[in-house]
Every structure is written in C-alpha cells, then in structure tokens.
C-alpha cells in the first residue's frame, strides 16, 4: 500500500508545479518591487575606517536618537559623482550623511573626495560587498534613511537628485 502511494507521488508533485505555473500566469508581474528592508532594524555590521581621520561606521552608531542618511557608494562608480553635490546640500541643511564604500581602496577614495567634495561624517569600508548585500542593496549608489533607533525608514535606489531632497527630508523627519 505504501509503495502504491509513493508511485503516485511524482504525479502529485508535478500537479503542484502546474498549479503554481497557472497562478503565476494569471497574475502577471507588475515589476514594482517594494523594498524588503523598510521598517526593519539595520542588520548588524561594523565597517572599519578606510581613511585616516574619518571614522568607520557600525550599527550601534545609528541608535543615538538622530536620524541620518546611509549612502552606499564607491569611488569607481561614476553616477556616484553626480549625487555628491546633492549630498553636500543635504549636509548643509544639517543632515548627517554616513557612507559605506564598496570594493574601494584608500587612495582611490581619497582622490574621489578631493575632487568632488566630502559630504560624509563617517565612511566605513565594505571590501567584499558583505554589508551592501545584508542591506538588501544590489548596486551603487543607494541611499537609506535610518531613524534614531536604527530602523530603516526608506530605501532610495540610484542617484539622489535635486528633486529627491524634499522627500528625503520628510522621511528624515525634518521640515523642508
């Protein structure tokens, strides 16, 4: 009797598969992907300093009651150059911006900051993309709004442009 049931198992598995396919076909993908990380606490990480005189960044640093921007970037990333002026403006408005530099080296980063300006109060190094991946970030640049308790409030994928400033300020809890 048991052997009998096992023989029908492949058919049952295939039918499950077919039902899954059927449902997948009936609900076509709308290609809008909401961030999975919003509303969740920052994953535990400690990114060591990469430049002398510029401290690294760890999860504990986000729990000081002050909301801030966490910018995932790299000196080799050309679009990242484009958003530096916007990050500088946010800094001028009193926003604390911290950076995680992905796959980067100290000399290249030094040059990047000297050429484009430095909006970051702290820069942590993420040589293997581990922190980037744990944040649910797939590319550079990406920017996270983190509240004073270390919870991710918002994830911005791609270059931060001038027009994104009001939205970011609102998520940070600051009036524009």
């Amino acid at each position, binding site marked *: 009797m048991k052997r009998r049931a096992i*023989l029908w198992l492949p*058919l049952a598995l295939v039918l499950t598969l*077919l039902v899954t396919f059927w449902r997948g*076909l009936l609900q076509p993908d709308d290609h809008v992907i909401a961030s999975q990380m919003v509303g969740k606490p920052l994953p535990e990480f400690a990114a060591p300093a990469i430049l002398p005189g510029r401290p690294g960044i760890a999860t504990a640093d986000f729990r000081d009651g002050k909301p801030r921007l966490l910018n995932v970037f790299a000196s080799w990333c*050309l679009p990242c150059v484009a958003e530096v002026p916007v990050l500088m403006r946010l800094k001028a408005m009193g926003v604390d911006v911290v950076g995680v530099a992905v796959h980067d080296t100290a000399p290249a980063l030094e040059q990047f900051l000297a050429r484009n300006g430095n909006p970051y109060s702290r820069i942590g190094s993420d040589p293997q993309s581990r922190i980037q991946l744990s944040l649910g970030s797939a590319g550079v640049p990406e920017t996270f709004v983190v509240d004073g308790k270390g919870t991710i409030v918002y994830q911005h994928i791609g270059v931060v442009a001038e027009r994104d400033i009001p939205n970011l300020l609102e998520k940070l809890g600051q009036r524009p």
Partner: protein
Amino acid sequence: MIAEAGLAALWLGAALALAQLVLGALALRPAQAALGRAIAPVAIVQALFVSLAFACLIAVFMRSDMSVLLVAANSHSAKPMIYKIAGTWGNHEGSMLLWVTILGLAGATIALFERKLRADTKMATLAAQAAIALGFYAFLLFASNPFARIAGVSEGQGLNPLLQDPGLAFHPPTLYAGYVGMSAAFSFAVGALLTRNVGPDFARAMRPWILGAWVLLTVGIVAGSYWAYYTLGWGGWWFWDPVENASLMPWLAATALIHSVTVLATRDGLRAWTAMLAVLAFSMSMVGTFLVRSGVLTSVHSFAVDPERGIFILALLAIYIGGALTLFALRVGTVTEGTRFDVVSREAALVANNLLLTVILVVVLAGTLWPLALEGLNGAKISVGAPYFNSAAGPLALVLMALLAAGPLLRWRSDRPGLVLRRMAPALLVAGAAFAMLVLFGGTIGVLPLLGLIVAALIGAASLAPLWKRNLARTPLFTWGMVIAHLGCAVSLAGMASDSAFTQENLAAMRPGEVQKIGPFAVIFGGLQEMPGPNYAALQGDLLVRWGSGEPFIMTPQLHQFSDPPMITNQAAIRTFWDGQLYLTIGEKEMQGRWLVRMWWKPFVTLIWLGGFMMALGGTLAMLGRVKRDLSARKAVA
C-alpha cells in the same frame, strides 16, 4: 505563394501525425496488429511534410517577404543573409516550427533504423512521438501560425540586436535538438511502459538518443555560457538566470539518465527508475520551454511574453507529463525488480551518481521556482540569487565529482573496498600532490575553490585509470568516450575553481593617458572613438596593454548602440593567453572626461568551456561507439 504552401504542408504533417497516433493505438490490440506496418511509412512522410513547411519559412525569410507577418516583425531587408536565416528560428513561431520539424525527423529516424526493439514497443514509441508532435502542431496552427499574412508593410522591425551574433544564431537550434532528443527518450519510455517491456532492449534502443541529446544540450549550454561571458560584460560565466537554469535542469536529468540506462542495458537493474528518469528529463525540457516562452519568471533573456501561449504550453505540459506519470504509477507495479547488486559495486556508484544529480536538480528547480511560488502564496516578491545556488549546489556537485573518481574503477555487481583503494592509489597521490602545491604556492584560497582544484586533480588522474594496462588500439570507442567526458569534468572543474580562487578585478574611472594595473598587466587608457557598424553605432575604447616589459598590444572593448530597436550591448575585449584571459569592458557614461573601465585577469578560465566541449566530444564518441557496435552485431546476424 510560398507561405501558403508552407501552411498547407504543416496541415498535412499534422494530419499524418494524427494518423500515426490512431494507427499506433489501434495496432496495440493483437487483432489489428497488421495496421502497425503502416506506422513507419506514415512517420517518414510526416517528417517530409513538416520539413517542407520549415523550408518554406526559411525561404520567406531569405526573400525578406514583408507580406508575411512573422518576417515583418522579426527581420529587416538590410540584415546580413546569415541573420535573415537565423531569424527564422529567432522568434516564437519559427522556433516552435523548428521544434516540431526536429521531432518529425527524430520519428522518421526511429521508424527507419530502430531494429532492436520488439515490434509492438516500437509502434507504441512512434505513437507516443506522434502524440507529442500533435500538441505542437495544434499550438502552431491554432495559436501561433508562422505563415500569417499582413498587408501594407514595406520594411521589417529588425531582430533583437543581442541575437545578432554568429554563435547565438545556432544556440537555440542546438538546445532544441537536445530537447527533442529527450522527447525520443520519453517516447521510448512510454512505449516500453505501455507494452510492459522495460528491460535491456529498451535501454539499448534509447541510449544513442539520450547520448545524442545530451551532447547537444552540453554544447548548447557551453556555447550559451561563453556567449553570456563575452557579451553581457559582467565577467561571469554562469548567472543562475531562470533561462540558464531552464537549460541546466534537463541536462542534469539527462546526465543521470545516461548513467542509469547503462545499468539497465548492461546489468538489467534500475528498471523503474530509468523509465522515471526518461519522463523526468523530457518534463524538464518542457518546463524549460514553458519558463522561457511564457515570461512567467523575470530574466535577462527578453523573449516575447504572451500569457496565452504560456497557457497553451502549460496545457501540453499537463497532458504529456501528467499522462506519462499516471501511466508510470499504473504500470510500474508490473515492472519486476531487476538484478540485485552489492553496496560496493559499479551499480551502487551509479545509483549514488543518480541520487546526487537528482538532488542538485531539485535544488536548482526549487531555487528557480521559489519566487513564483512565494508570490502566488502571499504576494511577496523575492529573487533567488547566486549565493543560494552556489552554496546549495556547489558542495553537492563536489561530492558528485569526488565519487566520479571512484565510479569507473569499480567492478559490476560486487567489489572489495581494499581493491578499489589500491586501484585509486595513483589518483589519490596526484590529489595529495595538488593539495601540497596549492598550500605552498597558492596563497589564500577559499575552501570550495581549494577543494575544487584538489578534486579536479583527483578526477583528472582517476579518469585515465580505466585505460591503464589496456591495449589502447583495442579499447572500445565508448570507453574512450567515457574517459574523455570524465576528463572534461576535471578540466571544467579546474577552470571554475581557478576562476573563483585566482581572479583579479580592477574597476577604475580612467582619463586618457591614465595607467592601471591588473594581474601581470599594465593597462593604459588611450581614449575613445566612434566606429560606425552595419546597423549600430559603436563606441570603442582603445586600451594599450603591456605584460611586464614585453611588447605592448591594443585591446578594444566596444559599446554597440542599436537604433532599431534602441538598445545598448557591451562587447568585451578578451585576450586569451595560455594561462588565462584578460577581460576588458568600458562603461556607458562619460563623466568629467573619465570613463569606467572594468578589468579582470582570469587565470585558466578557458578550461571551463574546454572541459565542456571535451564532455560533448566524449558523449559523441560513446554514441558512435554504441551505434557502431549495434551495426556490426546486425551484420553478424545477417
């Protein structure tokens, strides 16, 4: 006129397939067995008509007949002739017609040349083949007519520029022929189950088809992997993209089937399991076609997405696979147990091979479909990426590879562990030496790549052991095939492990004149120039590369900007050395006079594809060896 002739030939082919199915069903009753004699001629004529239909479609593409909808939508009069012809199967309708054409030719080949099988099993096999063909005929005639006309169009819409590549022009037909070869194995299994004839004869009849299909799938996957490597410009050779997985899953099942069919043919064991695997291998081919064609999963491969067609393929999937598995459940109880064997024996090693391959298949299938299942359950959207596949399938594949070293050295039915160890001693010594070398000179290497390199050395030596103390001139062709295919596994594994252990990467935004280091090379960015292409505008980076103090040479990665349809593709510049490849690409955007240049130095990466082609060569030799032996046996009888 040509289009109408093609459509007529397609209808006639469909009618003959119906006749083939009905005749086969009737002839299974002893009273009407005489009808069975008509099946083979019907199968041959069906193949002729469907080939004629396919030839007509190629003709309208070659003439750029824009009054045919399919040509207008997928071709362009200014395209080079080879891409006009390749355009025939570079689209949904044409590829389905290609599928049913190869299916017809496979049926005709069985009808003409298959003599080993019992007559009733052969009839049932051809009837099953006709049933599969009928589904695809219906699909073509009712849901995707390739010969439909359109009025008032004077120029075509072009072909997806990514597909304008000589390698890729022949990539889909190779994979399709492989899938169809799996359909032959499926038909043999259905025929054998229907006529209660699951035994060595069935295994021997099915074996050349599985080997042939496996070779084509291997070539298709290896070529597709190299294509992705040089054209996507990511420096990777396997991305675990749903469409890649769709070709990998039937390959895994076919690899298992090749090994289990050997047990059935040689030792009359694993009867039910082999029939099950034949069904599974074709199921995976169909699931692959469904995933690729329905657009149910998001992939970098952009095919025309049409849910209605997806439902049609889904219905075919349900009928064939559901039907075959029902037949399996009903009939396999009547398949008596085959010959038994010991825990230490060639059969047991092959069972372990089958189990591991099946588990890897399940891992890949689960990872590919998990996003779909989860979205169906609670609407969550996830993507399953390379880390899952690498960490779940990688170690399993390594265990499989380690077993591969021992398998061919085991005796059939029963063996002694001590003797096996003695036969493996030279290979174990080689693996130990490799380990010592890597620890001393290899620098820091991750655990998996390190194990990979050691296991590669182990298989490399062990796969040659079956030739030890043998008269090489008298060694049968299929033994050579096995040795070369297994050696290919070692070569490929060495390439993969070396790529992940030793690859160096440098991403830099460079100004003209700037110098960057990568591996043993110095790269100087000379600047960019625009180069007009036949139907695209190319931006070319000029990079001067120097190895040590040697003669410098120029490498020119390009960006291709197609206007119709608008699309940018990345052509990496790759230079192959005996010990690796230098891989350079340029990025898309200019920023303050700087350009993003990506540089990789990949030691021994070419071994990945070399090993793949060795596996295919081994499979080909094994197939030829089997066919040759069958033919000479037939002569001896006559």
